[in-house]
Protein backbone atom coordinates (compact mmCIF):
# COMPACT_ATOMS: atom_id res chain seq x y z
CA UNK A 1 0.00 0.00 0.00
CA UNK A 2 1.15 3.53 -0.79
CA UNK A 3 -0.32 6.83 0.37
CA UNK A 4 -1.25 9.67 -1.92
CA UNK A 5 -3.24 12.91 -1.47
CA UNK A 6 -6.47 13.33 -3.39
CA UNK A 7 -7.99 16.79 -3.11
CA UNK A 8 -5.99 17.22 0.05
CA UNK A 9 -7.08 14.03 1.76
CA UNK A 10 -4.73 11.05 2.28
CA UNK A 11 -5.83 7.94 0.43
CA UNK A 12 -4.21 4.55 0.16
CA UNK A 13 -3.83 2.64 -3.06
CA UNK A 14 -2.30 -0.84 -3.43
CA UNK A 15 0.62 0.16 -5.62
CA UNK A 16 1.87 2.78 -8.04
CA UNK A 17 -0.17 2.90 -11.21
CA UNK A 18 -1.05 5.31 -13.99
CA UNK A 19 -3.57 8.11 -13.56
CA UNK A 20 -6.09 6.59 -15.92
CA UNK A 21 -6.32 3.43 -13.93
CA UNK A 22 -6.46 5.31 -10.70
CA UNK A 23 -9.39 7.41 -11.84
CA UNK A 24 -11.33 4.43 -13.11
CA UNK A 25 -11.05 2.89 -9.68
CA UNK A 26 -11.71 6.09 -7.73
CA UNK A 27 -15.20 6.28 -6.32
CA UNK A 28 -15.92 10.02 -6.18
CA UNK A 29 -15.08 10.92 -9.77
CA UNK A 30 -17.33 13.71 -11.09
CA UNK A 31 -18.60 13.76 -14.64
CA UNK A 32 -16.67 16.83 -15.73
CA UNK A 33 -13.30 17.62 -14.23
CA UNK A 34 -9.69 18.56 -14.87
CA UNK A 35 -6.65 17.22 -13.12
CA UNK A 36 -3.35 18.43 -11.73
CA UNK A 37 -0.73 16.15 -10.25
CA UNK A 38 1.75 17.83 -7.96
CA UNK A 39 0.53 21.22 -9.17
CA UNK A 40 1.14 20.34 -12.82
CA UNK A 41 -1.80 20.13 -15.18
CA UNK A 42 -2.26 16.72 -16.77
CA UNK A 43 -4.23 16.71 -20.01
CA UNK A 44 -6.80 13.97 -20.55
CA UNK A 45 -4.79 12.36 -23.32
CA UNK A 46 -1.84 11.97 -20.97
CA UNK A 47 -3.64 10.12 -18.19
CA UNK A 48 -2.29 6.73 -19.34
CA UNK A 49 1.28 8.02 -19.27
CA UNK A 50 0.98 9.85 -15.93
CA UNK A 51 2.45 7.72 -13.16
CA UNK A 52 1.03 7.99 -9.64
CA UNK A 53 3.46 7.09 -6.90
CA UNK A 54 3.70 7.47 -3.16
CA UNK A 55 3.29 11.04 -1.94
CA UNK A 56 1.76 12.38 -5.12
CA UNK A 57 -0.90 15.04 -4.73
CA UNK A 58 -3.80 14.77 -7.13
CA UNK A 59 -6.26 17.62 -7.58
CA UNK A 60 -9.54 16.82 -9.29
CA UNK A 61 -11.30 20.09 -9.93
CA UNK A 62 -14.79 20.84 -11.19
CA UNK A 63 -16.67 23.87 -12.39
CA UNK A 64 -17.71 26.23 -9.63
CA UNK A 65 -19.37 29.63 -9.42
CA UNK A 66 -16.86 32.45 -9.70
CA UNK A 67 -16.55 36.20 -10.09
Amino acid at each position, binding site marked *: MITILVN*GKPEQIPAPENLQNFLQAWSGL*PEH*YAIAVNQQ*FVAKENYPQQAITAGDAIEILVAM*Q*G*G
Partner: protein
Amino acid sequence: MWQLLGESLNSRLFLGTAQYPSPQVLSDAVTASGTDVITVSLRRQMQSSTGNGFWQQLKTLNKKILPNTAGCTSAKEAITTAQMARELFGTHWIKLEVIGDQHTLQPDPFELLTACRELIQQGFEVFPYCNDDLILCQRLVDAGCKVIMPWGAPIGSGRGLVNERALTLIRQRLPDINLVVDAGIGAPSHAARALELGYDAVLLNTAVANAGDPVAMAQAFKLATQAGRLAFMAGQMAQREMAVASTPVIGQPFWHQATVAAK
Protein backbone atom coordinates in the same frame (compact mmCIF):
# COMPACT_ATOMS: atom_id res chain seq x y z
CA MET B 1 -23.19 44.55 -31.40
CA TRP B 2 -19.47 44.72 -30.80
CA GLN B 3 -16.50 42.50 -31.47
CA LEU B 4 -14.37 40.94 -28.77
CA LEU B 5 -11.62 38.58 -29.88
CA GLY B 6 -13.61 37.62 -32.93
CA GLU B 7 -16.85 37.08 -31.04
CA SER B 8 -19.90 39.26 -31.69
CA LEU B 9 -21.42 40.38 -28.43
CA ASN B 10 -24.53 42.41 -27.67
CA SER B 11 -23.92 43.14 -24.05
CA ARG B 12 -21.13 45.14 -22.45
CA LEU B 13 -21.74 43.57 -19.08
CA PHE B 14 -19.74 40.51 -18.00
CA LEU B 15 -21.34 38.84 -14.99
CA GLY B 16 -19.91 36.69 -12.24
CA THR B 17 -21.82 33.61 -11.10
CA ALA B 18 -20.89 33.47 -7.40
CA GLN B 19 -22.75 34.37 -4.21
CA TYR B 20 -26.32 34.22 -5.50
CA PRO B 21 -28.98 33.10 -3.02
CA SER B 22 -29.92 30.14 -5.24
CA PRO B 23 -29.22 28.62 -8.64
CA GLN B 24 -32.59 29.87 -9.85
CA VAL B 25 -31.79 33.44 -8.89
CA LEU B 26 -28.46 33.09 -10.68
CA SER B 27 -30.18 31.94 -13.85
CA ASP B 28 -32.78 34.67 -13.66
CA ALA B 29 -30.13 37.31 -13.01
CA VAL B 30 -28.04 36.14 -15.95
CA THR B 31 -31.08 36.36 -18.17
CA ALA B 32 -32.15 39.75 -16.83
CA SER B 33 -28.65 41.14 -17.24
CA GLY B 34 -28.58 40.35 -20.95
CA THR B 35 -24.95 39.33 -20.52
CA ASP B 36 -23.12 37.30 -23.14
CA VAL B 37 -20.15 36.40 -20.96
CA ILE B 38 -20.19 34.84 -17.50
CA THR B 39 -17.26 34.07 -15.25
CA VAL B 40 -16.70 30.77 -13.46
CA SER B 41 -13.97 29.14 -11.39
CA LEU B 42 -12.52 25.72 -10.62
CA ARG B 43 -12.78 24.10 -7.22
CA ARG B 44 -12.68 20.68 -5.63
CA GLN B 45 -16.00 18.91 -5.62
CA MET B 46 -17.39 19.23 -2.11
CA GLN B 47 -19.60 16.64 -0.47
CA SER B 48 -22.51 19.03 -0.46
CA SER B 49 -21.42 20.41 -3.76
CA THR B 50 -23.72 21.46 -6.51
CA GLY B 51 -20.88 20.94 -8.92
CA ASN B 52 -22.75 18.80 -11.33
CA GLY B 53 -25.79 20.94 -11.00
CA PHE B 54 -23.72 23.97 -11.82
CA TRP B 55 -22.32 22.24 -14.89
CA GLN B 56 -25.82 21.57 -16.13
CA GLN B 57 -26.80 25.13 -15.36
CA LEU B 58 -23.90 26.41 -17.45
CA LYS B 59 -25.08 24.29 -20.37
CA THR B 60 -28.58 25.69 -20.02
CA LEU B 61 -27.44 29.28 -19.69
CA ASN B 62 -25.50 28.81 -22.90
CA LYS B 63 -23.30 31.89 -22.48
CA LYS B 64 -19.70 32.44 -23.40
CA ILE B 65 -17.65 31.14 -20.44
CA LEU B 66 -14.76 33.12 -18.99
CA PRO B 67 -13.03 30.96 -16.35
CA ASN B 68 -10.97 32.73 -13.71
CA THR B 69 -7.88 31.86 -11.70
CA ALA B 70 -9.31 33.33 -8.50
CA GLY B 71 -7.26 32.66 -5.40
CA CYS B 72 -3.96 32.06 -7.19
CA THR B 73 -1.02 33.90 -5.69
CA SER B 74 1.75 32.89 -8.06
CA ALA B 75 2.27 32.65 -11.79
CA LYS B 76 2.79 28.92 -11.46
CA GLU B 77 -0.54 28.31 -9.75
CA ALA B 78 -2.34 30.57 -12.17
CA ILE B 79 -0.86 28.81 -15.18
CA THR B 80 -1.85 25.38 -13.90
CA THR B 81 -5.34 26.61 -13.13
CA ALA B 82 -5.66 28.20 -16.57
CA GLN B 83 -4.60 24.97 -18.24
CA MET B 84 -7.15 22.98 -16.27
CA ALA B 85 -9.83 25.55 -17.10
CA ARG B 86 -9.06 25.36 -20.79
CA GLU B 87 -9.58 21.65 -20.88
CA LEU B 88 -12.60 21.58 -18.60
CA PHE B 89 -14.54 24.46 -20.17
CA GLY B 90 -13.26 24.04 -23.69
CA THR B 91 -12.21 27.67 -24.04
CA HIS B 92 -8.86 29.39 -24.38
CA TRP B 93 -10.26 32.51 -22.70
CA ILE B 94 -8.96 33.00 -19.17
CA LYS B 95 -9.53 35.76 -16.62
CA LEU B 96 -6.09 35.91 -15.10
CA GLU B 97 -6.17 36.81 -11.45
CA VAL B 98 -2.96 36.60 -9.43
CA ILE B 99 -3.48 38.00 -5.97
CA GLY B 100 -0.65 39.81 -4.22
CA ASP B 101 -2.27 40.46 -0.87
CA GLN B 102 -4.78 38.37 1.03
CA HIS B 103 -6.42 41.36 2.70
CA THR B 104 -6.90 43.63 -0.27
CA LEU B 105 -6.98 40.95 -2.97
CA GLN B 106 -4.88 43.31 -5.06
CA PRO B 107 -3.37 41.96 -8.23
CA ASP B 108 0.36 41.20 -8.12
CA PRO B 109 1.81 43.01 -11.15
CA PHE B 110 4.91 40.85 -11.28
CA GLU B 111 3.38 37.38 -11.09
CA LEU B 112 0.57 38.58 -13.32
CA LEU B 113 2.90 39.64 -16.11
CA THR B 114 4.93 36.46 -15.84
CA ALA B 115 1.84 34.28 -16.05
CA CYS B 116 0.45 36.39 -18.85
CA ARG B 117 3.51 35.92 -21.03
CA GLU B 118 3.53 32.17 -20.53
CA LEU B 119 -0.18 31.73 -21.17
CA ILE B 120 -0.11 33.79 -24.32
CA GLN B 121 2.75 31.59 -25.50
CA GLN B 122 0.49 28.63 -24.86
CA GLY B 123 -2.26 30.08 -27.01
CA PHE B 124 -4.57 31.56 -24.40
CA GLU B 125 -6.56 34.75 -24.78
CA VAL B 126 -5.71 36.35 -21.46
CA PHE B 127 -8.04 38.80 -19.69
CA PRO B 128 -5.72 40.09 -16.96
CA TYR B 129 -7.26 41.58 -13.83
CA CYS B 130 -4.81 44.36 -12.99
CA ASN B 131 -4.53 47.65 -11.14
CA ASP B 132 -4.87 51.05 -12.83
CA ASP B 133 -1.14 51.56 -13.46
CA LEU B 134 -0.59 52.54 -17.08
CA ILE B 135 2.87 51.01 -17.17
CA LEU B 136 1.59 47.61 -16.11
CA CYS B 137 -1.22 47.82 -18.65
CA GLN B 138 1.29 48.71 -21.36
CA ARG B 139 3.48 45.73 -20.42
CA LEU B 140 0.47 43.44 -20.59
CA VAL B 141 -0.29 44.73 -24.06
CA ASP B 142 3.34 44.25 -25.03
CA ALA B 143 3.02 40.67 -23.82
CA GLY B 144 0.22 40.11 -26.29
CA CYS B 145 -2.99 40.83 -24.35
CA LYS B 146 -5.83 42.15 -26.47
CA VAL B 147 -8.03 42.78 -23.45
CA ILE B 148 -7.01 44.53 -20.22
CA MET B 149 -9.14 44.62 -17.10
CA PRO B 150 -8.03 47.31 -14.63
CA TRP B 151 -9.84 47.52 -11.34
CA GLY B 152 -12.20 50.28 -10.35
CA ALA B 153 -11.73 49.57 -6.63
CA PRO B 154 -10.82 46.52 -4.52
CA ILE B 155 -12.81 43.35 -5.24
CA GLY B 156 -16.14 43.33 -3.47
CA SER B 157 -15.70 46.85 -2.06
CA GLY B 158 -18.35 48.42 -4.28
CA ARG B 159 -16.61 51.77 -4.19
CA GLY B 160 -16.79 52.43 -7.92
CA LEU B 161 -14.06 54.12 -9.95
CA VAL B 162 -11.76 55.46 -7.25
CA ASN B 163 -9.18 56.87 -9.63
CA GLU B 164 -11.06 58.04 -12.69
CA ARG B 165 -8.07 59.96 -13.96
CA ALA B 166 -5.91 56.86 -14.06
CA LEU B 167 -8.61 54.91 -15.89
CA THR B 168 -9.05 57.74 -18.37
CA LEU B 169 -5.33 57.84 -19.03
CA ILE B 170 -5.28 54.11 -19.82
CA ARG B 171 -8.17 54.56 -22.25
CA GLN B 172 -6.38 57.42 -24.01
CA ARG B 173 -3.08 55.63 -24.28
CA LEU B 174 -4.37 52.23 -25.32
CA PRO B 175 -7.00 53.18 -27.90
CA ASP B 176 -6.90 49.86 -29.74
CA ILE B 177 -7.18 47.55 -26.75
CA ASN B 178 -10.42 46.22 -25.32
CA LEU B 179 -10.69 47.65 -21.83
CA VAL B 180 -12.95 46.26 -19.14
CA VAL B 181 -13.35 47.65 -15.62
CA ASP B 182 -13.19 44.63 -13.35
CA ALA B 183 -13.85 44.79 -9.60
CA GLY B 184 -15.14 47.55 -7.40
CA ILE B 185 -18.34 48.30 -9.34
CA GLY B 186 -21.01 48.73 -6.67
CA ALA B 187 -23.86 50.45 -8.44
CA PRO B 188 -25.24 50.91 -11.94
CA SER B 189 -23.98 54.50 -11.95
CA HIS B 190 -20.43 53.16 -11.61
CA ALA B 191 -20.92 50.88 -14.58
CA ALA B 192 -22.40 53.69 -16.64
CA ARG B 193 -19.43 55.87 -15.77
CA ALA B 194 -16.94 53.24 -16.93
CA LEU B 195 -18.69 53.05 -20.28
CA GLU B 196 -18.92 56.84 -20.53
CA LEU B 197 -15.13 56.94 -20.17
CA GLY B 198 -14.90 54.77 -23.27
CA TYR B 199 -14.32 51.44 -21.57
CA ASP B 200 -15.63 48.58 -23.64
CA ALA B 201 -17.32 46.69 -20.86
CA VAL B 202 -17.53 46.07 -17.13
CA LEU B 203 -17.20 42.85 -15.19
CA LEU B 204 -19.01 42.56 -11.88
CA ASN B 205 -20.51 40.04 -9.52
CA THR B 206 -21.06 41.13 -5.92
CA ALA B 207 -23.15 44.20 -6.74
CA VAL B 208 -25.72 41.97 -8.41
CA ALA B 209 -25.45 38.81 -6.31
CA ASN B 210 -25.61 40.65 -2.97
CA ALA B 211 -28.41 43.03 -3.94
CA GLY B 212 -31.68 42.64 -2.14
CA ASP B 213 -33.23 41.63 -5.46
CA PRO B 214 -30.41 40.32 -7.68
CA VAL B 215 -32.64 39.90 -10.73
CA ALA B 216 -33.85 43.48 -10.68
CA MET B 217 -30.30 44.66 -10.04
CA ALA B 218 -29.05 42.65 -13.01
CA GLN B 219 -31.55 44.45 -15.19
CA ALA B 220 -30.46 47.78 -13.71
CA PHE B 221 -26.88 47.06 -14.74
CA LYS B 222 -28.03 46.04 -18.19
CA LEU B 223 -29.69 49.40 -18.68
CA ALA B 224 -26.79 51.30 -17.11
CA THR B 225 -24.19 49.79 -19.40
CA GLN B 226 -26.38 50.50 -22.40
CA ALA B 227 -26.81 54.08 -21.18
CA GLY B 228 -23.09 54.57 -20.64
CA ARG B 229 -22.16 53.26 -24.05
CA LEU B 230 -24.83 55.32 -25.80
CA ALA B 231 -23.53 58.41 -24.01
CA PHE B 232 -19.96 57.69 -25.00
CA MET B 233 -20.94 57.32 -28.62
CA ALA B 234 -23.25 60.34 -28.54
CA GLY B 235 -20.45 62.70 -27.51
CA GLN B 236 -20.78 64.13 -24.02
CA MET B 237 -20.89 67.81 -23.10
CA ALA B 238 -17.71 69.12 -21.49
CA GLN B 239 -17.76 69.85 -17.78
CA ARG B 240 -17.53 73.53 -17.02
CA GLU B 241 -16.18 75.39 -14.05
CA MET B 242 -18.97 77.93 -13.99
CA ALA B 243 -22.68 77.99 -14.62
CA VAL B 244 -24.15 78.54 -18.08
CA ALA B 245 -27.83 79.33 -18.49
CA SER B 246 -29.77 76.58 -20.24
CA THR B 247 -32.82 78.79 -20.85
CA PRO B 248 -31.99 81.48 -23.48
CA VAL B 249 -31.42 85.00 -22.16
CA ILE B 250 -32.44 86.68 -25.40
CA GLY B 251 -35.98 87.96 -25.36
CA GLN B 252 -36.14 88.27 -21.60
CA PRO B 253 -38.72 90.77 -20.34
CA PHE B 254 -37.21 94.10 -19.34
CA TRP B 255 -37.13 93.46 -15.63
CA HIS B 256 -34.51 90.81 -16.20
CA GLN B 257 -32.49 93.13 -18.41
CA ALA B 258 -32.62 95.87 -15.86
CA THR B 259 -31.32 93.48 -13.25
CA VAL B 260 -28.52 92.30 -15.42
CA ALA B 261 -27.53 95.82 -16.40
CA ALA B 262 -27.43 96.84 -12.77
CA LYS B 263 -24.87 94.15 -11.95
